[in-house]
């Protein structure tokens, strides 16, 4: 059975994950801010899964797209219209536009060259945001965002209840869209390019155009994640373009399992929870816990945590 074929088991897993997200709201009413950050990060890691997990595009610059969405949505809210859904659309367009323009050039190269260039794009954008103080607030961050109620009905509250449901709704919508996309002919073509660009060209696929399209869609989703973050925290700082964000997103994806949407979500939830708990337990050595976890997964379950049941099953049969 193909790893990403949509079937009954993934559907059950997805339903359980959604139920867990709903339960978390009631179980941890004082951690809604943290839980909302997890949901937003899930959207970003899903965008990376499309680009890297499915498309095989080696990137360490997903923050370029996330940050573009964050600043675009923040500026739109401050200067134009503080409606959340319109802001999401603006963030998606900004992320897609940056992905399209940078991807048009970047996606002519592969491997390490592409990796380095993707980092460079994010660094350049960070410097631009830093220098454009008058517009972005520079190192102080973009402040003064005050969002309208979602759909004019649900006002953002101090505890973060609205923010949580809002972020969850966006995550579910993004997940459903990517689920459809990855099962479509286009999704299969993107996986084909990951497997063999030479064979894809030799069956007549315009490989570069397909890659740019996939990267642009990934940019739109990353831009939505950035916009969500800007709206929920009502602040955009230069860190949205940071290398650390791109790298963490990549680690979360590898941890959960690349090329599977559920893997992106599981990896993000596990990484951020371990980080949260370990940092609270031992503020000085918490990185050790993350490092040990990632090493263990890479060595023992290369398919990621989402491949753990299958790996344990194989282990059981061997005995």
């Amino acid at each position: 059975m193909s790893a990403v074929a949509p079937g009954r088991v993934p559907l059950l897993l997805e339903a359980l994950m959604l139920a867990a997200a709903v339960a978390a709201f009631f179980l941890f009413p004082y951690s809604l801010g943290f839980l909302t950050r997890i949901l937003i990060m899930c959207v970003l890691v899903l965008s990376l899964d499309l680009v890297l997990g499915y498309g095989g595009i080696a990137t360490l610059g997903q923050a370029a797209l996330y940050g573009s969405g964050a600043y675009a949505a923040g500026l739109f809210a401050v200067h134009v219209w503080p409606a959340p859904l319109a802001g999401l659309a603006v963030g998606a367009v900004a992320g897609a536009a940056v992905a399209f323009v940078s991807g048009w050039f970047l996606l002519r190269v592969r491997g390490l060259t592409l990796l380095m260039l993707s980092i460079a794009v994010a660094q350049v954008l960070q410097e631009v945001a830093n220098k454009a103080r008058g517009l972005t607030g520079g190192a102080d961050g973009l402040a003064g965002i005050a969002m309208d109620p979602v759909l004019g009905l649900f006002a953002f509250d101090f505890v973060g209840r609205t923010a949580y449901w809002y972020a969850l709704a966006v995550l579910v919508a993004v997940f459903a869209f990517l689920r459809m996309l990855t099962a479509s002919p286009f999704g299969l073509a993107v996986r084909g390019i990951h497997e063999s660009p030479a064979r894809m060209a030799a069956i007549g696929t315009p490989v570069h155009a397909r890659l740019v399209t996939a990267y642009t869609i990934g940019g739109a989703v990353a831009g939505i994640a950035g916009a969500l973050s800007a709206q929920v925290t009502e602040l955009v700082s230069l860190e949205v373009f940071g290398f650390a964000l791109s790298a963490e997103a990549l680690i979360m994806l590898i941890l959960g399992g690349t090329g599977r949407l559920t893997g992106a979500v599981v990896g993000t939830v596990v990484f951020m929870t371990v980080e949260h708990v370990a940092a609270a337990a031992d503020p000085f050595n918490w990185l050790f816990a993350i490092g040990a976890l990632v090493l263990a997964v890479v060595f023992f379950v290369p398919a990621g945590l989402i491949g753990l049941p299958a790996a344990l099953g194989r282990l059981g049969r061997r005995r």
Partner: protein
Amino acid sequence: MTALEVRGLEVRGLNRAFGGITVARDIDLDLPPGARTALIGPNGAGKSTFANLVTGALAPSSGEIRFDGRDIGRLSEAQRVKAGIARTFQITTLFRRLTLRENLRLAVLEREGRTGRWFGRAGGDERVEAEIEARLAAVGLAGRAEARVEELAYGQQRLVELALTLALRPRVLVLDEPAAGVPSGESHLIEEAIAGLPDDLAVLIIEHDMDLVFRLARVIVVLVGGAVLTRGTPAEIAADPEVRRLYLGAGHG
């Protein structure tokens, strides 16, 4: 016969140089429908370069490539596939971690111009799935549709590549060393598959295996140093003293 009536592939005066090194020199070649032409020559003679020039993986330095009278020398590799020219590679080039079904599905969907679609399941078209099964059965791989390519023996992977290439419904097929790397016990499968290709398909075989070439080809072109040394029927080539001296060597006596 006017230009419009010319059918098949015509290569005229094709050249390709890398820096100062000429790897293709004034090559002329015709592949009308139904052709079974083999390109032979020692290592480094420029055989794979010629395959890459015809299929568009490489751009020629000069010369003409016409297909049904139309100049295709400047078309991209993907555009030439759409025009009807498909290939297999010297080293099997497939989607290794995808199933045989998914491999062929990509070829069929691409042939029908559907791989850009975001909606609908890739495997949701029964007509496409039936065609995939028929094509796998034709190369003796019925029942293996759900296996991943990497799980197959190399000779079987060769057959998958052939089935995938045929799924593009080409009119010209370039086979770059189809028997290379295939264990001798499996090479008869490749030979049977090539012998069973449609009669109207033009086939260019680049091959080291002389037995295979002499059994399958009706025209043999000998390439040395990037240029055509001679060409003729298998009987003519086998009798040519220069070919025997330059290429076949003492081993073939």
